[in-house]
């Protein structure tokens, strides 16, 4: 029983990482219908920026997190400007391939820096002894992840419901032509969506870096894990990203906890989210909270 609860707790904290990564993905899709295959690279770049600010410039870790988030805001906007702006109106396979090409390009550029072969952790900034609840272990870093997720989600909810720019983004997501006619700058909204994606990716990368250490491949592979999360939650739903992330995180931990014994070589947790993805696609393709697309002839 303790084992089961431990798996759940670990799953929730891992799920929050996925939720942060998926938030950015969902924002981009919501605003511009673009599938971002480069989310993993954004996570990696964000994490490396924070690492660089901490280790090389010697800033305190929380300050470098904030600074990293602000820098990634600019990076996200720059990426949208350079790669996605020329692709407006192109068929979806082209846009998917542009994000794939961009992912390749970004990871290649990371290899030009010392970060390509980096395998280090953030300098310790939290107590080493984890929290103990009964027999359940919760590391401080995992708690940080959960808190960051809650902060991001509440900021986003506030932003989308109360601020003018947020409502403008929702308008663009709903009907681009109508919002254009009302004076909303659709291009600014796209840039903002990508910037927000960069910010949440930085937060995700920060948590992963604190928990597992920084390494380019493991960070970019999170970008793939985002797909089961957003399909489960709904491609254009922020609440879905969080709920989906937590559910996938928990399912992954439960699968690897209980099924690894039966599978030669273990690693059931790697494939289980994708099996769930297939099942969801066949049963409820729009996910838990996604808006259904009704095709009219």
């Amino acid at each position, binding site marked *: 029983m303790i084992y089961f609860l431990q798996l759940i707790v670990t799953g929730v904290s891992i799920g929050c990482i996925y939720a942060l990564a998926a938030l950015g993905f969902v924002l981009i899709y919501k605003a511009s219908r673009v599938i971002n295959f480069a989310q993993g690279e954004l996570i990696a770049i964000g994490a490396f920026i924070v690492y660089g600010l901490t280790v090389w410039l010697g800033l305190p870790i929380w300050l470098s997190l904030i600074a990293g988030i602000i820098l990634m805001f600019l990076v996200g906007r720059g990426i949208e400007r350079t790669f996605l702006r020329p692709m407006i109106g192109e068929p979806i396979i082209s846009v998917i391939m*542009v994000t794939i090409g961009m992912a390749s390009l970004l990871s*290649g550029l990371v*290899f*030009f820096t010392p970060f390509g072969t980096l395998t280090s952790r953030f300098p310790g900034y939290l107590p080493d002894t984890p929290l103990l609840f009964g027999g359940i272990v919760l590391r401080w870093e995992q708690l940080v992840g959960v808190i960051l997720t809650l902060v991001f989600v509440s900021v986003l909810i506030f932003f989308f419901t109360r601020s003018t720019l947020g409502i403008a983004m929702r308008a663009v997501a709903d009907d681009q032509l109508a919002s254009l006619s009302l004076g909303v700058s659709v291009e600014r909204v796209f840039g903002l969506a990508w910037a927000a994606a960069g910010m949440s990716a930085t937060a995700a990368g920060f948590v992963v870096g604190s928990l597992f250490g920084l390494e380019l491949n493991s960070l970019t592979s999170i970008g793939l894990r985002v797909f089961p999360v957003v399909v489960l939650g709904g491609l254009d739903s922020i609440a879905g990203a969080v709920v989906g992330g937590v559910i996938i995180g928990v399912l992954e931990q439960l699968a690897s906890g209980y099924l690894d014994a039966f599978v030669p070589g273990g690693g059931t947790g790697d*494939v289980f989210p994708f099996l769930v993805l297939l099942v969801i696609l066949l049963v409820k*393709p729009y996910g838990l909270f996604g808006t259904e697309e009704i095709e009219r002839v």
Partner: protein
Amino acid sequence: MIQGGIVAVNRWFQSGNYRRSYREDQTIFATFSEEASLLVLLVVLFFVPVMPFMNRSLFRLVDLALIYTIAVMGLNLVTGFAGQISIGQAAFMGVGAYAAVTITRDLAEPLLGFSGTIPFWYVLLLLPIAGLVAALLGAFVGLPSLRLKHLYLAIATLAFQIIFTWLVGHLPWLEQGGSIRIPRVDFLGQVIKSKLIGPFYYYLGLTAVVLLAFAMRNLLRTKFGRAWVAVRDNDRAADAMGIDPGVTKIMAFAVAGFYAGVAGALLALLNGSVIVESFTLDISIDLLAMVIVGGLGTMPGSLIGPAFLLFLDPWVERLAAFVQGFFPATINVGTALRPTVFGLVIVLFLVYEPRGLANWWRILRQYFKRWPFKY
């Protein structure tokens, strides 16, 4: 109205479009000179292996290009002509390759008692069988296309690709992704190994490419090809016209699977073994890139794309060696430059030439077709 046959027509050098009947419109070649130029190209390709500049690494490149051309033809069919985005083509290649290897290891060797080498007639049987196995899996993977469209279908194929890689990496029957050997081919008493591998697989690959390209071109001319294009453009309208979109989509996946399976089996034979790393998501993305750079939905595109991207590699290596001098030794420019150039090529093509290299080829052909007229 000018009837075909009444006006004198130069079937060799006519300038412009002179197809005057439905029957003429269905032909692949508009003029005899087009057919002749294709034959000349085939003759030139036939003599490539005896050229003095061919060495082992160049042979390997060319053989790989031919093999990937087959897989890319299949991918172009399902994604370009039928409109179903497939990010799992490498998995189908893997199915074909592993099918070839396991059939040889578990069925053929005990039953037919090959010792150390496999005869050529067996290879000729193995390739279509591997293709059929992959086609069956292709049909299975195509099942979601009955319910899903576009983006969701792409994500489903992505999931299949990842599940395939994981399965192969964890099944003890498949050595958990490790290397499984396939014996060398015995062609008319001569064992194909070391120096003979390059030319032998070149001709085998070239024959396969020619046959499969011929088949694909003709498939596209028949009702199947038209059904695929109809489903791509508007599947509800195709349904209203009597074309079953579900069957059409599944058939597209199956045919793409067949092509990929043959390509995978050839790759297994060329390498002498299979490992799971040859069939991962990265390879699927490479194949998609080859399709797009070549030209999505065009026949010449599938032939140009793989060659272009594969032949880019040695140049990137040379550039990396040159640039390495400017960087401190801790940074390996080779591993950095390859994905950078790859991504840059894809992005530049998509932004500036979305119709791919086949578009340049088309413009070139039109220029010569219309010469000396301008239009």
